[in-house]
Structures are given as C-alpha cells and as structure tokens.
C-alpha cells in the first residue's frame, strides 16, 4: 500500500488534480480573452459521490503500444478525467467573445486558494503519519 492509497491522501490528491486541471482551463480562457467567437469553459465541480473518480484520479490515457520487451514506455496523451463544461454566459461582446476577464481572474484566485488549502491539509496529514511513526 503506497502512501497515496490512504483514503484522505488519495481524496486530497484528487482535489489537487482537479485544481490543476481547472487552472489549465482558466488559463485557456484568459489567453483567449480577445479571440472572436470564443466561449469560456470551466470544469464541472468535483463530486465525492463519484466512486471511480475518487478511487483513481489518474485515468490511463492513450499510450504507445510496446511490441518488444526492450521498448521504453512512451508518455502517452493523458486524458483529464474531469468533465469540461461550458461556463455560463453573462455578456457577449460584439465580436462574439464571451470571456469576462474579471470573472476569470476571480476564478483563478479562488482556484489558487483551494489548491493552497488542499496542500496545507496534505502536509498536516503527512505530519499525522510522522507523529504516529514517532520520529518528529
């Protein structure tokens, strides 16, 4: 049993993965803030009643086939296990762009705070294990 199989750590890891994936989507929105006909996207909120997602956040993506045992394992296209969805549209500019920069910056800040909370909890949980081991 690896350390990340401990339920609380694996849950926190899923949360961190989700924040990471969301940061990517938000960066996409901000970068395309002036692109015509661009609609913002966001990740669907994480639900903890989704057993397969919690059990293994790392869904194996498409990888290269190894036809001989001496082949090295290629790094495949890893697919994000989190669902993408279109963000609600409040206003559309004449150019057809629906990104609200302020809103996106708010989301980036929130995402960062969530991530920090999760990393802090992760550190605390690791400290609990260290305390149990008696080597502090």
């Amino acid at each position, binding site marked *: 049993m690896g350390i990340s199989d401990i339920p609380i750590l694996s849950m926190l890891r899923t949360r961190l993965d989700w924040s990471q994936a969301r*940061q990517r989507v938000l960066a996409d929105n901000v970068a395309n803030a002036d692109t015509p006909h661009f609609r913002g996207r966001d990740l669907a909120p994480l639900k903890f009643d989704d057993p397969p997602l919690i059990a293994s956040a790392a869904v194996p993506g498409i990888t290269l086939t190894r036809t001989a045992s001496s082949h090295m394992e290629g790094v495949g296209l890893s697919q*994000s296990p989190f669902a993408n969805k279109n963000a609600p549209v409040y206003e559309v500019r004449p150019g057809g762009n629906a990104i609200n920069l302020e809103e996106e910056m708010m989301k980036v800040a929130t995402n960062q705070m969530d991530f920090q909370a999760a990393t802090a909890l992760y550190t605390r949980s690791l400290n609990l294990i260290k305390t149990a081991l008696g080597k502090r």
Partner: protein
Amino acid sequence: MDFLKTLTIATSGLRAQAGRMRIISENIANADSTPRGPNADPYRRKIPTFRSELDRTLDAQVVELGKVKTDSSAFRLKYEPGHPAADSNGNVKYPNVNSLVEMMDMREAQRSYEANVNVITATRRMIMRTIDILKT
C-alpha cells in the same frame, strides 16, 4: 504536468498581446505618414486579429496572432496646397489612424497582458506550494 501546460497557454496569450501591441505602436508611429506623391496612398491602419488554435500536444486552445488586416475606412483629407503630396485640389491624404482609438486598444492589450501575467503568477505559486509539501 498540467501546470506546465497552463504556463504554456498563458505564454501564448502573452505573445499574442505583445504582437498586438507591436501593431498598435506601428499605427501610432505612422499616424501622420503622408503619401509619397500626389496619387499615392498614405499609411493604412493595420488591425491585428486573434484566432484560437488547438494545440494537440497540450490538448488545449492556445491563442495565436492571425493575419494582420488593413482598415478599409476612408483617409483623412487636409487642405494643404503647398504640400508636395497635395493633389490638384490642394488636398493631402492622411492615414486613417485615430490616436484615441489606438490608445484605447493599447490599454485593452495592456489589461489582457496583465491578466495573463497574473495567471502565470498564480500558477507559479501553486507549483511552489506543491514543492513545499516536500519541505515539511
């Protein structure tokens, strides 16, 4: 590593906005470029375009500077009979650049650039937090 992808996407935004800034500065610098002769046209205002393109290695929509188009609106006419580029009626064609519009565009490019820089800063902070887990 999703965070590195995030940084790449935000960088594509920075690059696009910097290219836009370059075109705006070209327009402002040439705001009074008169034609070479009586029948020639003066500088024509350039318009940057953005398009979002799917980067397959990132699996995300990065933004790119598209074709630079020219503004087809009419030139400004000024009555200056002594000017070497004046036509038979004494009118000189001046570029169809409006400094106020350019200033507005410049501010917008600046704001978008700052937004992308903020995304990079937030992402960087998140990476640092992840590394901090190791340090405890």
